[in-house]
């Protein structure tokens, strides 16, 4: 196993910058998820690490080696692809054996390793089958096995679960996590599904538009999103972002809406707002931090319920506030009807404030 370091990594296609000055360190044995919407540069970044794409500028270290100019085969990596990329003309056994044959291992050693990998992944009975005779989950497992059999320094995974159905995805998620824990493997995992990143990774690197937005543990990213993009991308349903204007009233800071209402801020939040470059501030709140009242309460803001979605153990209510959609979760035994008048109370401790100009999170000093 080895650590991976990306230093000021840039990849351009013509004048299009796919990856822009990305720097991050993946520690030995760490599971890092690269996450972001499609086209954000995450797969390009992974391909750069794999050596499938050439680096425009910057450095990639695997272990202590700079691997910029090494062929993929010399980087001591293994990769699992979204479409599994199993060799269709080869049996499962030959698929697993291929990386070992390429390294010119003796036949009996190849056989031993292939059977060992098959045993670990519980697919010994599938060894003679062709990939097309396998289910999606089994193909996924073979792809994993082909990566595992080589004992590489780093595992690269490119959306390995996105072709599976929902139930299987949850199951494979825990299998991959278990795989990581057992092997203490260094894994770089690309996904567009923030939930996968949050549930599996030690650290997640959120990317957008070729830029690294935030790189931290899922808990930190969730609790302290660095900017509005991360705030809206991580978490489901998405964090509500309400554009407001900061002003002072009765000696304290308040946020006022074009709709006429205003929200008094705690001293700490007032401090944050004071650091903004503009009066226009965006209030961010996760569904679980907003309290829904069915009657007027001091400090709560009046709104109208728009849709009500029961999911079983929690009911999601959507309302419009200052032109933005606000998600609120309530206990299922609270009955709310569409178009019903409701009052929303924001948790001052757990609300987020963003500068609408820079889109960055506002922090108290």
């Amino acid at each position: 196993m080895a650590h991976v370091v990306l230093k000021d990594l840039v990849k351009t296609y013509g004048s299009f910058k796919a990856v822009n000055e990305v720097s991050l360190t993946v520690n030995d044995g760490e599971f890092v998820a690269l996450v972001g919407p499609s086209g954000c540069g995450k797969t390009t970044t992974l391909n750069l690490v794999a050596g499938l794409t050439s680096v425009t500028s910057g450095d990639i270290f695997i272990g202590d080696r700079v691997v910029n100019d090494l062929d993929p085969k010399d980087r001591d990596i293994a990769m699992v692809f979204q479409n599994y990329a199993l060799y269709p003309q080869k049996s499962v056994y030959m698929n697993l054996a291929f990386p070992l044959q390429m390294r010119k291992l003796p036949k009996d050693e190849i056989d031993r390793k292939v059977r060992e990998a098959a045993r670990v992944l519980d697919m010994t009975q599938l060894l003679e089958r062709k990939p097309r005779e396998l289910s999606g989950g089994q193909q996924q497992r073979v792809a994993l096995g082909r990566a595992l059999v080589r004992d590489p320094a780093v595992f690269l995974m490119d959306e390995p679960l996105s072709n599976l159905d929902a139930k299987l995805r949850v199951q494979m998620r825990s299998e991959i996590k278990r795989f990581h824990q057992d092997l203490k493997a260094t894994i770089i995992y690309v996904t567009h599904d923030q939930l996968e990143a949050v549930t599996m990774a030690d650290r997640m690197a959120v990317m957008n538009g070729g830029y690294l937005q935030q790189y931290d543990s899922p808990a930190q990213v969730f609790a302290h999103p660095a900017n509005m993009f991360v705030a809206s991308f991580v978490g489901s349903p998405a964090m509500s972002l309400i554009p407001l204007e900061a002003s002072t009233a009765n000696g304290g800071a308040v946020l006022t809406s074009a709709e006429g209402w205003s929200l008094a801020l705690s001293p700490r939040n007032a401090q944050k707002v004071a650091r903004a470059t503009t009066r226009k501030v965006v209030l961010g709140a996760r569904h679980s931090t907003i309290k829904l009242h069915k009657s007027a309460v001091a400090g709560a803001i009046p709104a109208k319920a728009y849709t009500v979605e029961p999911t079983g153990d929690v009911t999601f209510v959507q309302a419009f506030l200052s032109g933005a959609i606000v998600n609120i979760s309530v206990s299922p035994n609270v009955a709310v009807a569409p178009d019903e008048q409701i009052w929303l109370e924001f948790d001052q401790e757990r609300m987020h404030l963003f500068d609408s100009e820079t889109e960055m999170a506002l922090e108290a000093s």
Partner: protein
Amino acid sequence: MTIVSGKAEARRTLQSARSDVLRKMWEHRADYAYVLPAIAVMLIVIAYPIYYTIELSFFNTPPGLQLRDKIFVGFNNYGAILTSGVFWQVTFNTLIWTVASTFFSFALGFAAALALHRDFIGRGVLRAILIIPWVISAVAASYIWKWIYHSDFGIIGAVLVELGWASRPPNFIDSVSTVLPSLIVVNIWREFPFAMIMMTAGLQTVPEQLLRAAKVDGANAWQRFWHVTFPHLRNVSTVTILLLAVANFNSFIIPWIMTGGGPSNASHIWITHIYELAFGRQRWGVASAYSVLLFIILMTLGYFYVRALSGNERKDGGA
């Protein structure tokens, strides 16, 4: 911040797209190694002859003279062609030959592809038999049909006499009025399988779901064909028809072997006429001028072909 810079990025991409081409070519210089052999061969054997033909079309090459002693005559060759009576007869023959061969080859091939689309016992064998004429050499086909059309011992004439439809075997290819249709029948015999293969391949790409959806919507067999199958095949039909048209325009072997253009030029088409001018009468300059005219016609056809194709692509690509 990222959103804003992303937009600026996109704008810059548009502006500098043109100047990128050269740099891209340089960045991809290694990739050209793969195609270099192909392109080199194509240049030598296609580009050079085209150039040489155009050059030669402005020269006179009297028989018996060495080719390099050619005499510059400007546009005289072109003038001679356009004022000769044979030119118009040959052009008329070529038109009939091309249009009729293309139309019937495509119609028969498409119909056969449709009739063979439904699975039945022996379908594979039948399809294979229908393809054979396309595979065998045009020289062999010409001889087979020459024998079938034989004015004394031909089987068609004999059948007609046997059935009492004719008192004596007709002269199919020795008569000015029947020679061209008779040769067209041979050409269709050899070409409809190509249309059949192309349309069979095309039919396999018609999405079954659409046909079912149309059926659920109450469309009958003809409506399903007209509203689902046919529009889906428009692209491959266009390609097939144009390839057939060009191939027919360029036909040589069948008329050359079966009749040599006769009787009295009744089955001469452009290519056989050009060949005879060049290799029969050594009139290289005139033959080259003919060829250049042919280029121009074919390039015009080709222009519409490319436009038809790219037009379709634009429509498809929008989805």
